[in-house]
């Protein structure tokens, strides 16, 4: 699941504040982007189903958390991100991409616009663990001379917990001194836990309703116990990176290093919604990669991210060839046996003429050609 080459060298065997708890819970720990993370506690399928039907807790403290203070922050981020930042209201969260000058994707991120209780405003960027080092270096290299911005990497001082599933909101509501049930999806607030700031966002990477909390590292175990106590009525259970991967795959959310990389642009990845071409005043936005992407948009994409469903039980895995009439036309980027759909699902890139739902293709599963059908995405959508 992790791209070895992309791992930052300065981290090795980094542990989240909950490392001991994971081990105590019987988690199988794996190296993920330099962090020791739980892949699963017992069964990936059980953790997956508990998230779809009930509520689970994920430690996602490995994700990078970069805070931008200062009056130049909005302008700096607006230049770095494919999506407009300048028009964000306090409390908004947006999914965006960071591209290089060629329009290749350096990372996919969430950007938060937040306000502390004392009234100071700032932005927060949540980046992939595997890209944190690269993105910090990239931002510093793009830094304008006069920028009135302070960048603080808050990853190691804070923890991030995701509480996900249909019972997630009811689980956390009594713990938070804001009305989380009334918060809209992709909204965030700064509130308090034990007199310390806590960021609550209605976000996640599972396709279910839920929240993510960013809290101080030294409070993590205490807040964890509060969540577990509040979730006892639902028998809340922990879920690991294995279930996180099958959940995001069913929901067709791309994963960096698989569906996204520097050779892939947002348009072929099906992420055009995360590119703002024109600003609120009707002017063409200029951001890093905008010229290259405008050219792609004008010429049309060469290939597209698609979903594939298959009969049987053998999953198409990353790297397997996708064929049309015996010719290899593309490659699987990730795939698994879907616990919800009870059939293999996968994502792949193929030329656009083969990308229409219903198109019959084949996947080379270790030497055997298995029929597959292009499916609309996502594979699973909560009702």
């Amino acid at each position, binding site marked *: 699941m992790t791209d070895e080459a992309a791992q930052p060298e300065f981290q090795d065997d980094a542990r989240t504040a909950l490392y001991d708890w994971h081990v105590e819970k019987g988690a199988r720990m794996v190296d993920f982007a330099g962090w020791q993370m739980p*892949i699963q506690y*017992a069964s*990936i399928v059980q953790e997956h189903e508990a998230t779809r039907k009930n509520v689970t807790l994920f430690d996602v403290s490995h994700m990078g958390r970069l805070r931008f203070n200062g009056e130049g922050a909005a302008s700096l981020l607006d230049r770095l991100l494919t999506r407009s930042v300048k028009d964000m209201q306090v409390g908004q969260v947006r999914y965006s991409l960071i591209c290089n000058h060629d329009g290749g994707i350096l990372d996919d991120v969430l950007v938060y616009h937040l306000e502390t209780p004392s009234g100071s405003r700032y932005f927060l960027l949540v980046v992939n663990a595997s890209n944190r080092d690269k993105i910090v270096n990239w931002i510093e290299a793009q830094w304008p001379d006069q920028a009135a911005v302070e960048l603080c990497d808050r990853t190691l001082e804070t923890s991030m917990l995701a509480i996900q599933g249909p019972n997630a909101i009811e689980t956390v509501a009594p713990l938070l001194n804001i009305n989380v049930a009334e918060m809209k999806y992709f909204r965030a607030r700064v509130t308090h836990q034990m007199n310390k700031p806590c960021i609550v966002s209605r976000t996640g990477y599972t396709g279910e309703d839920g929240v993510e909390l960013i809290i101080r590292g030294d409070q993590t175990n205490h807040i964890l116990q509060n969540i577990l106590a509040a979730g006892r009525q639902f028998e809340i259970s922990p879920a690991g990176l294995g279930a996180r991967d099958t959940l995001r795959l069913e929901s067709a959310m791309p994963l960096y290093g698989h569906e996204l990389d520097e050779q892939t642009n947002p348009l072929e990845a099906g992420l055009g919604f995360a590119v703002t071409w024109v600003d609120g005043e009707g002017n063409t936005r200029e951001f890093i990669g905008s010229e290259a992407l405008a050219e792609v948009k004008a010429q049309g994409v060469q290939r597209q991210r698609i979903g594939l469903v298959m009969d049987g039980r053998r999953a198409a895995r990353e790297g397997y060839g996708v064929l049309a009439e015996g010719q290899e036309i593309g490659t699987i980027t990730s795939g698994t*046996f879907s616990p919800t759909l009870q059939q293999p699902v996968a994502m792949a890139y193929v030329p656009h003429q083969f990308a229409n739902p219903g198109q019959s293709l084949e996947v080379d599963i270790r030497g055997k050609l298995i029929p597959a059908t292009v499916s609309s995405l996502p594979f699973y959508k909560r009702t």
Partner: protein
Amino acid sequence: MNAEELLYCDTHEWVFVSEQDGQKIATVGISAFAVEQLTDLVYMELPAVGAAVTAGEEFGEVESVKAVSPLYSPVSGTVTEVNEGLPDNLDILNTDPYESGWIMKVNVSEELPESLLDHATYQRQCGEAS
């Protein structure tokens, strides 16, 4: 079958050899440790009856939600029987990997490899691995 009387590959297959009509017949499966490590099994590819298998070489595969793992034969010989019901009922491997969870029977054509481990050695190796 009693797990303690079986021999094991370091790749987690078990084998039990019995004499039938002067032939050496090996019954092959995968260990409880392997099943626990794999978790969430979804698919198993069995060899064909009559196929030749070679000690240390792949004879099939088992797939979990997470990954695909090859199955390696502990012995060389010809497959005489496969557990055809197993792929549709992989849960058996969680409850009874050494009896009803057997995978194939092989008419053994060569001496057993010396690399096979007894139960105690295999358990020790699993303890070190986990």
